């Protein structure tokens, strides 16, 4: 067994018995569920590994077993080095105690020594930006301050192996960036990190390897880039034909009781110039979204939106179809949204469909994903302007260089416009 492994798991499994305990002391007719099944994997020392998967796929169960909160039903895990786990920020925070007291209490709970906390105390408080309130009970803190202080304590843990569950989804955007920075530091310091998140951008930027858990089993184990794209591809039930059936779309949101009641999307496809469904197309091709929907009861003021996003969920732009003044009678409908100038640079994208009539009727966050392939415009461009520079291409033109002897803001008559290509 190599000592370069920080975590070695062999056939780990966890079975839960459903049903309310206490009501039926006799164990019969109990339904069993395997939250984790036969998980075998290795994590090398100093490696940051992401764990992805749907809700209920067993990610948290895995972390709980590795951090000894719960015991496995089968299998074995060997862990070399001290473990610090962060399944929640602010575990053990007591509202009546001051920020100072809570830093010590929470630190001790996460396995820090008093000496260690004392040495890092000022750093923790500065990171959390709560210097002025450190002797105030935390129940008087704003939720932002509370979360910042809680994360700051955790961020200063220095175990050999750090286990982190979805805890970065807290605080405001600027603090989230700060946390991500801190996490990046941790993984670059050569510490082993196991990181669960639904934020694919964070997984991609922080980890080099990833595990994908699906229904309690490891569905993929490899480089982050491969595993994440495999996982994302699986999240959409896409048919080969290019026409996506939306009647059972898993990403559909149920916002309140209004969604998916009177209007419901049934299918969506991207069409090429000859009205054939496609899943990938070149950059110059117009974007044509063909959507079909059912109207169940008459609807007035129907609004339809097509939203284009990156595969990580970043919204790029939204096309609004206008508000329909007249009542739409029950029946099946289709409409085509056409974007003649496709501004997307090569890469994978997702389409979100939204139907509203004062209140949301139906929202399908990931109705379909598609690829934009590099055409001659981009092939040239990509050498200079990478995807990291931006994913949207806007038409632009640059004038030829000329000596700067004219007053600022006025270009000489001789300025010839040279058409530029993309970006």
């Amino acid at each position, binding site marked *: 067994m190599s*000592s370069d492994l920080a975590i070695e798991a062999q056939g780990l499994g966890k079975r839960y018995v459903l049903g309310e305990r206490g009501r039926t002391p006799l164990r019969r007719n109990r339904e069993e569920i395997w939250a984790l099944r036969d998980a075998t994997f290795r994590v090398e020392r100093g490696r940051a590994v992401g764990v992805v998967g749907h809700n209920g796929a067993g990610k948290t169960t895995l972390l*709980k077993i590795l951090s000894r909160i*719960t*015991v*496995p039903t089968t*299998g*074995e895990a060997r862990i070399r080095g001290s473990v610090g786990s962060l*399944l929640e920020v602010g575990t053990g925070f007591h509202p009546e105690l001051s920020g100072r007291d809570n830093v010590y209490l929470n630190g001790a*709970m996460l396995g820090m020594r008093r000496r260690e906390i004392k040495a890092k105390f000022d750093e923790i408080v500065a990171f959390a930006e709560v210097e002025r309130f450190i002797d105030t009970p935390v129940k008087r803190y704003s939720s932002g301050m509370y979360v910042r202080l809680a994360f700051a304590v955790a961020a200063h843990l220095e175990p050999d192996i750090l286990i982190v569950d979805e805890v970065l989804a807290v605080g405001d955007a600027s603090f989230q960036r700060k946390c991500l920075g801190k996490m990046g530091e941790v993984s670059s310091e050569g510490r082993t990190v196991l990181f669960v998140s639904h934020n694919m951008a964070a997984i991609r930027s922080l980890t080099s390897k990833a595990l994908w858990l699906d229904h309690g089993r490891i569905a993929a184990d490899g480089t982050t880039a491969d595993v994440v794209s495999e996982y994302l591809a699986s999240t959409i039930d896409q048919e080969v034909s290019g026409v996506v059936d939306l009647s059972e779309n898993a990403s559909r949101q149920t916002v309140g009781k209004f969604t998916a009641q009177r209007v419901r999307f049934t299918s969506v496809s991207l069409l090429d110039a000859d009205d054939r469904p496609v899943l990938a197309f070149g950059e110059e091709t117009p974007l044509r979204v063909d959507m079909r929907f059912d109207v169940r009861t008459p609807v007035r003021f129907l609004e339809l939106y097509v939203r284009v996003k990156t595969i990580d969920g970043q919204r790029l732009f939204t096309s609004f179809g206008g508000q329909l003044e007249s009542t739409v009678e029950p029946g099946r409908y289709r409409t085509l949204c056409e974007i003649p100038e496709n501004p997307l640079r090569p890469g994978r994208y997702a389409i979100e469909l939204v139907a509203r009539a004062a209140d949301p009727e139906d929202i399908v966050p990931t109705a379909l994903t598609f690829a934009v392939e590099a055409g001659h415009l981009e092939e040239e461009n990509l050498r200079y302007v990478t995807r990291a520079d931006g994913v949207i291409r806007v038409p632009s033109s640059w004038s030829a260089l000329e000596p700067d002897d004219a007053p600022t803001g006025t270009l000489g008559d001789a300025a010839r416009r040279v058409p530029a290509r993309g970006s």
Partner: protein
Amino acid sequence: MSAAATTEKQQTLVIRPPSGFSGIGLGDLWRFRELLLFLTWRDIKVRYKQTLLGAAWAVLQPFLTMIVFTVVINHIGRVHTPIPYPLFALSTLALWYYFSNGVNLTSASLVGSAPLITKVYFPRVSVVLSPILAGLVDFCLAFLLVAGAMAYYGFGPPLQALLVPLFVVLAGFMALGLGLVLSALNVSYRDIRYAVPFVLQLWLWATPVAYPGSAVPARFQLLYKLNPMTGVVEGYRWALLGSGHVHALNLGVSIGTALVLLVGGALYFARAERAFADVI
């Protein structure tokens, strides 16, 4: 973290399904000793936060009970004690409250710490131990009141008063042993939460706290002697005030029960502990 520190910590932890007896985790408890101190200190600090009277509550509880007892038992019930009744009742009430608050708080401790138990690993027994340790502070405050009453009635402590801490520790062990069993049971069966305060109330009357052992009728003597708190309370009173006797049988029952509860409680707890995070 230096490379040296990293290699020093290269212990391999093996996680596998529990099978049979796997120790009661005293090693882990020692490793997390600072957490135990922090939890105890939290319990002390938080207990009387945002109360008007603060720590005076620790003194008021036995004091007011003593007044009620003096009126009801001494004056109306005409129970006579060899020493002034208020002192007689107050001294043992201080100890009784240490014991009964300890049992009450420990049996609710695990469920009260559910958010911790499901989110972080630490020796679960720390949350059971900390109320017993924190309770000592309350006991000491109440004991100051007892010392004041002794001075008021002109009672100098006898030589055996040096043994008082032993009886306090015995009461603490008894509460801890019960707490281990009850807190673990409470995780699965919340009935415990309702039963404990009620049983403790009955237990107070079955124990010679408000009356001397000599007042117990002959037909109840066996039951009285089998009560494991009898030896603790009588022994404590004998040590502190030199009143009454310590019966070897009573004391034996107390020490024996405390040991059985502690060891049995620890074993049961260690077994039940594995499922806490899943069941709580």
